[in-house]
């Protein structure tokens, strides 16, 4: 069994070794107060709490985590605080869930704390399934102990001695790192029985997903751990009352847990000094799409989209015109360029019809078709709907069909109305968050980019030139008649004599773009319109 003195000794022993390694590596700054930050402009504009150790410590070595004050928050909580105090601190910190909905973590824990039960559970939701999002993955792979420590503090406060981490099967490295981290923590006595001699027991077990997006939803996740089909429950009880095997259960997101130890290390006031009044702290975003510097960004809540996309992300690629940014994945919405000064916090994003979500942030430029993007997300939802409730199972399919029609140029006047009415029904009538938010990509694009829908339906044109069925390839009179395009065409629909202007037979063209690629760059006679 490890004692607090032993923990301090490990820290003192390991700290110089870590600093020496980092100085040799040369990519970090060690500040006066002992904090360590990564160098470079990209990081300068960020505030890293959840990611603070990522890229700095060796995730396979628990001692390096201890060298940056790891497990001291847990020790302090176990030795100096009562369960009730921890919950009060969590409530005072104002930390809100980072997995999507933003529910106050302290209040959630309090609910489970208040129920009497012979067994309670703490679950970490590591099923990160939004396409394009990899925040949680980065934390799990680079700083697994911060999640374990956060879970242990939570377990102590609600009275749980057992934790589960539900990881998606597509993250094998994260699984390996977590396994190693759990083993090391057990070996040192920071997990398991009688932790730090305080009599507190806490064990963590890994459970793997098997490729079902809906299992990220809390009750579906519980069903899956129980060994069933991962379908959401009808919510008669809160999971904090009757969750896993009918016992009080708390589910939090990876990033939420990673914030917990830091709050207890640096204090509630420090945490509240970052971010906004109603959304304290930071949020990690996966900035992707048509942006210059794609990557993970952690910024204080209340930072504007402009600061994230332009100041940190460097704006769009190749000087293209910025059109929209999508937040919240398949549950979120598309925010237009004129709202780029919106501040990123739960309330502000909600107000404009999008959501914070788990942190996916996709940048789109003038070449992105907004109808096609809505279609893309709906396609995802249709695939992932579990089929339990009708509005989601049938409604999303009908919506996808309608969008398919529109992007292929067969849209009719009444389709927009149909989409609006379906959106309303699916949002109001679905059983779980998957269905309730499935229409958001359609609702927001209809609200902010209605003209694009109308162009597809009325003029049979795709303004962004992205919808294959609505564009045509055309050879301009720059053509020198070299014949490269005709040879490349897979359907032989380009004709023209040598050294003369070539012509594409539009009826037979399949719009694969091979001709445009084949045309010598100096000539560039083939255009898309």
């Amino acid at each position, binding site marked *: 069994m490890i004692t607090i003195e032993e923990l301090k000794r490990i820290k003192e022993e390991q700290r110089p070794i870590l600093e020496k390694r980092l100085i040799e590596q040369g990519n970090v700054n060690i500040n006066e107060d002992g904090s360590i930050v990564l160098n470079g402009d990209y990081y300068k504009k960020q505030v890293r709490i959840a990611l603070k150790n990522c890229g700095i410590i060796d995730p396979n070595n628990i001692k390096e985590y201890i060298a940056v004050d790891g497990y001291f928050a847990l020790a302090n909580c176990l030795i100096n605080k009562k369960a009730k105090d921890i919950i009060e601190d969590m409530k005072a910190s104002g930390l809100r869930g980072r997995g999507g909905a933003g529910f106050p973590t302290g209040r959630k824990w309090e609910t489970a704390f208040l129920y009497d039960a012979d067994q309670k559970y703490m679950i970490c939701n590591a099923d990160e399934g939004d396409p394009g999002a990899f925040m949680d993955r980065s934390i799990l792979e680079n700083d697994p102990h911060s999640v374990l420590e956060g879970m242990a503090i939570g377990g102590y406060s609600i009275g749980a001695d057992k934790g589960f981490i539900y990881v998606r*099967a597509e993250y094998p490295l994260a699984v390996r790192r977590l396994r190693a981290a759990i083993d090391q923590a057990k070996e040192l006595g920071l997990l398991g029985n009688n932790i730090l001699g305080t009599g507190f027991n806490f064990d963590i077990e890994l*459970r*793997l*997903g*098997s*490729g*079902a997006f809906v299992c990220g939803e809390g009750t579906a996740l519980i069903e*899956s*751990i*129980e*060994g*069933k*089909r*991962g*379908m959401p429950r009808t919510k008669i009880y809160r999971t904090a009352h009757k969750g896993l*095997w009918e016992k009080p259960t708390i589910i939090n997101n990876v990033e939420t847990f990673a914030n917990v130890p830091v709050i207890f290390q640096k204090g509630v006031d420090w945490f509240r000094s970052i971010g906004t009044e109603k959304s304290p702290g930071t949020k990690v975003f996966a900035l992707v799409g048509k942006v210059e510097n794609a990557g993970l960004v952690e910024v204080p809540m209340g930072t504007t989209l402009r600061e994230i996309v332009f100041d940190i992300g460097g704006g769009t690629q190749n000087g293209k015109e910025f059109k929209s940014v999508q937040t919240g994945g398949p549950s979120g919405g598309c925010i237009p360029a004129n709202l780029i000064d919106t501040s990123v916090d739960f309330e502000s994003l909600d107000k404009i019809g999008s959501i914070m979500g788990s942190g996916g942030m996709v940048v789109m430029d003038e070449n992105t078709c907004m109808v096609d993007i809505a279609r893309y997300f709906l396609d995802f939802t249709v695939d992932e709907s*579990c089929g339990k409730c009708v509005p989601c199972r049938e409604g999303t399919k009908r919506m996808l069909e309608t969008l398919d029609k529109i992007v292929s140029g067969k849209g009719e006047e009444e389709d927009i109305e149909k989409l609006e009415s379906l959106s309303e029904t699916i949002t109001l009538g679905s059983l779980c968050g998957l269905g309730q938010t499935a229409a958001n990509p359609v609702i927001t694009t209809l609200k902010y980019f209605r003209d694009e829908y109308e162009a597809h339906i009325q003029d049979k044109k795709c303004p962004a030139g992205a919808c294959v069925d609505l564009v045509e390839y055309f050879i301009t009179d720059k053509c020198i008649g070299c014949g490269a395009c005709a040879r*490349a*065409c*897979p*359907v032989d629909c380009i004709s023209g004599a040598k050294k003369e202007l070539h012509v594409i037979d539009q009826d037979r063209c*399949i*719009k*694969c*773009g*091979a001709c445009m*690629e*084949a045309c010598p760059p100096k000539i560039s006679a083939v255009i898309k319109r």
Partner: protein
Amino acid sequence: MEFVFDREKNKEKIEELEFFIAENKDMPGILMPALQETQRIFGYLPLEMLQVISRRLSIPMSEIYGVATFYSQFSFIPKGENIISVCLGTACYVKGAQKILEEIEDQLNIKAGNTTPDLLFSIDSTRCIGDCSLAPVILINEDVYPRLKTDDIKGILDKYRKEV
């Protein structure tokens, strides 16, 4: 498609699974980990092994089937040694990819999405793989076969038969 599950050949693997089940029999919610372990050991979920799981854990086959079909990572048929991906994207489709697919199906006597009984080949169809100017194309493992004609198929498949 029926696959003969050779108990003799799979003896060690079966023991590995039996051991896993014996070790974890009392773990609550054991079914998912048991299916994941089966898939890891055998590469798919053999019916015979699902029956073993059903008996050992006293879970009805219907329930196991329900769970196994819910998650996209589980497969009921083994993957062949050579995976043929026939592009059915637009360019390939117009250039006769459907005929190519049918020819491969005839030659191997299985439909797309299946595996030959000798486990040598699986056929998949895919969306555009970005080689439209070479249409129609198929991929076998990592190798691209461009501008195919139905007559080419037999020769190509024979190459993989000989190699084994």
